[in-house]
């Protein structure tokens, strides 16, 4: 009878496609909006995630995210180095500077000042130049998207000169960098040079990056640093979640995206549910005939569930296809770079669609169960 269920569904193409596209658009709204939300939230922590060479971030205990930093004293670096279990610890400057290009245009940039000796925190993927070129006098590395912002329409090339805090800087490398939350270019330079590119402050050490010795766990060393220095020491993942959590709590982004995702859920349920229910209603007489002919309620429910499952699977497939096509089509747009559908968003969307299909078929199943088979004898 499963075959009959499939034929019944497929026989009414208009309703079948209506229900399928209800699910498909529900899927598209849920998956696409959730993915963009996840991508945006990830951007708040991308500069943390891009630093792969160090496991531990040490900061002032009041720091809540990677963009609002209370600088540490230089002595804090040495205190961290003195903690048992710390293999090495280096400076990192992270702040904002104003870049002026030839012609007088200027832009705000994210400035990353890397430890002069080790260059820990340097970008992983270089498009032009090398990381060691940072040792060239006035050398900076800029991310590809930032280059496009500063010099729109120009082919990326090295040797471009900019001005920060009346100091000259030369582009010696172009890298790929994960997009920041604000669409600012990301510039990398040496720590000592970075301090010259920003106005003076008493303390300017943003973070201490540290690595645990072999045999020590990250958490163990974080705990030891906190105990010995009264500073906040977090693993890369912990700092990422602290930053993401801050933006989740203090901005309207989750609410706005949450509303859209909820709308996707409601619209998907409404369209799929209504169309599917109409489909069942119009076939009620046929279901009654099948019931009269001896088909049990259990098997009728299985038939309805199979129909609902087919609608759900096909709709989910089309919806995810549309979502994937969107991200594939926009992957080269600078503003949307790095956005994609994480596997767990796809899985979560599948869960949401299952719930939609459950609700959509619930009313229909009830109608079929309470249906009197004697209805077939009414003219």
């Amino acid at each position, binding site marked *: 009878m499963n*075959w009959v269920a499939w034929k019944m569904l*497929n026989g009414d193409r208009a309703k079948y496609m209506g229900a399928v596209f209800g699910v498909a658009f529900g899927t598209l709204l849920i998956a696409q909006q959730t993915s963009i939300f996840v991508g945006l939230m990830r951007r708040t922590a991308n500069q943390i995630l891009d630093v792969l060479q160090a496991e531990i971030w040490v900061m002032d205990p009041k720091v809540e995210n990677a963009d609002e930093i209370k600088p540490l004293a230089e002595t804090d670096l040495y205190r961290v180095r003195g903690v048992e279990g710390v293999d090495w610890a280096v400076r990192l400057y992270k702040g904002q500077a104003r870049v002026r290009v030839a012609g007088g245009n200027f832009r705000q940039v994210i400035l990353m000042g890397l430890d002069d000796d080790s260059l820990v925190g340097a970008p992983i993927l270089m498009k032009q130049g090398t990381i060691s070129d940072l040792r060239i006098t006035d050398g900076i590395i800029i991310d590809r998207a930032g280059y496009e912002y500063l010099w729109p329409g120009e082919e990326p090339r090295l040797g471009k000169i900019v001005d920060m805090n009346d100091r000259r800087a030369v582009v010696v490398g172009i890298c790929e960098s994960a997009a920041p939350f604000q669409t600012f270019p990301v510039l990398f330079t040496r720590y000592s040079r970075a301090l010259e590119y920003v106005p003076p402050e008493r303390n300017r050490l943003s973070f201490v990056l540290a690595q645990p010795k072999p045999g020590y766990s990250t958490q163990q060393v974080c705990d030891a640093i906190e105990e010995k220095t009264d500073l906040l020491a977090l693993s890369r993942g912990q700092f990422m979640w602290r930053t993401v959590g801050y933006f989740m709590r203090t901005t309207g982004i989750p609410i706005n995206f949450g509303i859209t995702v909820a709308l996707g859920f409601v619209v998907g349920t409404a369209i799929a549910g209504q169309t599917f229910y109409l489909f069942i209603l119009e076939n009620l007489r*046929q279901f009654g005939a*099948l019931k009269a002919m001896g*088909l049990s309620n259990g*098997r009728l429910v299985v038939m309805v569930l199979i129909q609902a499952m087919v609608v759900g699977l096909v709709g989910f497939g089309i919806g995810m296809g549309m979502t994937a096509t969107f991200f594939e089509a926009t992957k080269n747009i600078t503003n949307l770079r790095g956005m994609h559908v994480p596997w767990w968003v796809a899985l979560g969307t599948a869960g949401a669609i299952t719930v939609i299909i459950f609700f959509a078929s619930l009313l229909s199943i009830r109608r079929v169960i309470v249906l*009197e088979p004697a209805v077939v004898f009414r*003219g």
Partner: protein
Amino acid sequence: MIASAAVAVSCRQVVKDFGDGDSRLRVLHGIDLDVLEGEMTLLVGPSGCGKTTLISIIADLLDPTAGEIDLFGTRQSRLPRTKRIQFRARHIGFVFQQYNLLPALTAHENVAVPLLINGWRRSQALEKAHLLINEVGLESRARNFPSQLSGGQQQRVAIARALVHGPKLLVCDEPTAALDATTGQVVMELIRRVAVQPGRAVIVVTHDSRVFSFGDRIARMDDGRIVDVQEVEPALAAPHEPRS
């Protein structure tokens, strides 16, 4: 009461009420009726007299308020619900006034449905359905959908569907009501020819007096009661299809 042939369906003091309290309506008032194997029994009477309610109860689609129904010696009320559904699937065939064919299935797929309900494999069910489609003279229309068939053709498909699993009881509800007179005659001839067999009872509900001649026995109902059961006089027999 008839005792000469085996009794297929026995109704004793069957009562059916609809509604509760003040709105209670008694539709059947203590029906006694025997339907014999190998015969076609016509259940006739004016609209609203309770014919459809009675065949719904006989076919176990409705429960009686009181009274007992025996189908081929089995008292339905004593069977558990699942067994009753199985009994219906195996031993009862239905022909409906509105055909009730599944619009998404072809004629020959529609005929296979009762076999699928009884757990047959699809290929075997379709093979058997083909034989029945041939028997009702629709082999050239086997792959047509119901919407591509005339009313008479659809009713012939419905008859094939009702008989494909070899039921012991065939219940036909106004099978000619939606058809013109000529097609109605053809359909009744077909039911007479392919359905009436030893070991099978056929009940046809109708108020179309032009088809009375196809029956072996006529049970007249009025106001929820059987008022008369008569054998059809051989002189009234349809001239175009002699009864056995």
